[in-house]
């Protein structure tokens, strides 16, 4: 028994990432990916002191000004990068119109579902530490005085959600998910379910990427990422609005099937487990594998996991990996964690409108445009710890 979700519409996608805030620019960037920017003077660690230093590069998001969205300047001082990204993208959902007025005229019926990552950060700030380290007692007062407003607390997922709910006046049911790409798809599924099950009339659904903190590469290295993979850290956020059928001005996307599970990250042949999850999602959607016309998997951090994911998908679809209709936004905008599936959902909507898909050209970062001939788009996320989520989206040409 699973709650049907086909009658819930997804629309009004908004994004904020290195390519800006327009979906068409993201589309173009996937055809011709921009070069990442030099970022930190950090180097990939190596066992050999003589190893050449590799610069870390990144896809930073453009600066966003929450004050321009109407947030109080004092409050903005307490906002952390991820909260700024969140309000920037969520604010666009409201601003883009034509707008389903009821969503924000009746905020008690509008909920919030967000995926956000965890990034290790130094709190208190490093610059404030030497005094504290040098003397135990007297320095604490100085240290507390050096803490920025809401230090530590501004990093909580709940703080980012609070900023979004205050900005848009959301008072419905909510849930926050962490920390990897699967969190974005969990937010999408549960947001849609909250509408389907009558908990919310509308649900704002979002994913936010990690911030470019100096410790981010250290964490990524731990999960098997390597600068030589060609995938670099990025910043970004993407949001969608879910509402009942007919409630959105331009409903063009529907979550028709989904499955959640666990596939160990070191599983040598994940295809069998992927097959079970895909079958579950297809059964809910009442579709067959041949109905899938576009596959949008989130990028894996480790090159080995990425290769196994691609091979498993090739096995599932009985095609060589280079012939899979596979698109990946990370090639153009960087590794965005929970934001990635939401960006791919927005991209799916654009592709379904246009009747086109973007297929990744193996061995390069570029995609090519092709006709989208089958009506179902598969989103998937396989997180570094093994959480695995599949979602099927359907829409119609504009």
């Amino acid at each position, binding site marked *: 028994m699973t709650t049907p979700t086909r009658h819930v519409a997804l629309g009004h996608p908004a994004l904020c990432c290195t390519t800006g805030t327009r979906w068409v620019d993201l589309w173009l960037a996937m055809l011709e990916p921009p070069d990442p920017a030099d970022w930190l003077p950090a180097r990939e660690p190596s066992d050999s002191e003589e190893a050449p230093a590799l610069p870390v590069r990144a896809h930073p998001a453009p600066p966003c000004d929450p004050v321009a969205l109407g947030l109080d300047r004092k409050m903005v001082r*307490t906002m952390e990068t991820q909260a700024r990204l969140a309000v920037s993208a969520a604010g666009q959902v409201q601003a883009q119109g034509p707008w389903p007025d009821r969503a924000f005229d009746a905020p008690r019926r509008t909920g919030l579902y967000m995926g956000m990552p965890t990034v290790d950060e130094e709190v208190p700030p490093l610059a404030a530490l030497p005094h504290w380290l040098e003397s135990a007692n007297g320095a604490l007062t100085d240290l507390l005085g050096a803490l920025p407003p809401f230090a*530590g*607390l501004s990093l909580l997922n*709940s703080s980012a*959600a609070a900023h979004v709910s205050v900005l848009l006046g959301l008072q419905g049911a*909510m849930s926050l998910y962490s920390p990897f790409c699967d969190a974005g798809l969990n937010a999408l599924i549960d947001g849609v379910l909250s509408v389907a099950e009558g908990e919310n009339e509308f649900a704002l659904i979002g994913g936010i990427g990690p911030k470019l903190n100096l410790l981010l590469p250290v964490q990524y290295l731990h999960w098997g990422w390597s600068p030589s993979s060609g995938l670099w850290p990025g910043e970004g956020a993407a949001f969608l609005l879910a509402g009942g059928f007919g409630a959105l001005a331009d409903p063009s996307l529907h979550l028709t099937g989904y499955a959640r599970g666990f596939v160990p990250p070191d599983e040598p042949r994940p295809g069998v487990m992927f097959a079970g999850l895909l079958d579950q999602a297809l059964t809910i959607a009442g579709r067959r594998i041949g109905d899938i016309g576009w596959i949008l998997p989130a990028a894996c951090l480790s090159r080995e996991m990425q290769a196994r994911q691609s091979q498993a998908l090739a096995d599932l679809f009985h095609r060589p990996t280079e012939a899979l209709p596979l698109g990946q936004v990370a090639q153009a905008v960087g590794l965005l964690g929970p934001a990635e599936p939401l960006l791919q959902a927005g991209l799916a909507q654009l592709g379904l409108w246009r009747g086109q898909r973007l297929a990744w050209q193996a061995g390069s970062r570029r995609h090519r445009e092709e006709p989208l001939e089958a009506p179902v788009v598969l989103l998937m996320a396989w997180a570094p710890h093994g959480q695995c989520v599949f979602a099927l989206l359907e829409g119609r040409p504009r």
Partner: protein
Amino acid sequence: MREVAVTGLGAVVGRCGDASGLFDCLQRGESMVREHPRYRDHGFRNPALASIADEVWAGVEASLGECPPGWGPSTRIAVHVARQALRGSGLHTPSACRASRGGVFVGHNKSLFTEADLSNLSRHHDAATGRVDLDAFIRGGAHDSDNHYRRNQDTAALALADETGWQHCISTHGDACAAGGMAIGVAYRRIAMGDIDVALAGAAETMGNFPALAAFTAIGAMAPAMTRPPHEMSRPFDADRTGFVMGEGGAFLVLEAAQAAAARGAPVLAYVRGFANRLEAHRISASVADGDEYLRCMQAALRDAGLTAAQVDHVNAHGTSTLANDACEAQALKRLFGERCGRLPITANKSALGHGLACSGAIEAVLSVLSLRRQLLLPTLNFQRPDEACEGLDIVTVARQATVRTVLTNSFGFGGQNCALVLEKA
């Protein structure tokens, strides 16, 4: 919607290593709050903390044996406590677990660097340039790359999903002080709607460390100075309350479709009847003073349960001992229950346990289930006289026998994410 039963409980808090023992301690009016010497030495004016006692930690470690290096304190507590709950439910064997379509729902907030991590990192920081030599940090020997896993929010959920094989829905909730209640409520919802048949739901959090204490001290949420003995510092709804005391611990429940529990002859300890979670859209640091947002959340939970306010027999309050929160919750309770509020027993467990953030809602849910089982209400310590905002409430101050059919338990999160659960006697 399917009926959802509670079939197992587990908890570790302070010097109590299991749920039943914890209830007994609280029934006797014992507090878990102590002065913590490390934080006194750091210079905190309020070093009161309800930390997990060394002897309890020793028991946890002995029971777990060798753990994966990425299991930090909260994951170890979560696994230990979840095993208690699974044993109680009779689902502690791999074959029993794997026969079920299950999920894992864990409340755990983003953790911060510990003082040891900070100290290590700062040695590689050049204050003049503001740069950090990451190579030296990584190669320096003191850096332990598993430290990130230990703080990572989803490590506990994944460990439990691996242990039980319940992988149909793995979910980590980071809704600040409401995260534990949220995890339980979302698990209830997924079972009730038929997505899964069984779930481990709860939270573990160990925020008794320097950065967390510094952060909450800096915004004035914690009691500013130890003007009383440590065990008297947390005083929800009392006129002399000055802020909360940090706590830590973990609690888990096994939730199960009632029909499935009955089919396998499982012990039903209570039912989850209703749940609501609501955003506030007000301010980051304070709720609407008239209690409107808390009221709306409690009303929604009662609607979900199909009950009226008149059918609630007991409230397990969020009750943090901060001026604003308790006043706001008191207003909401008075508006919800009207003149009956003076006769409706209310307990705030944080008076004895401190505020464990994510884990507090889960611990309070476990204690509420035990109140339903034993028909016994736990005391709110240190409540002597209310201020004007908290007047007119029946705050339970000594353990009280009572006929309890339904408990409403509240969790209100920093930033304005609130939830309420309705639990019913089996």
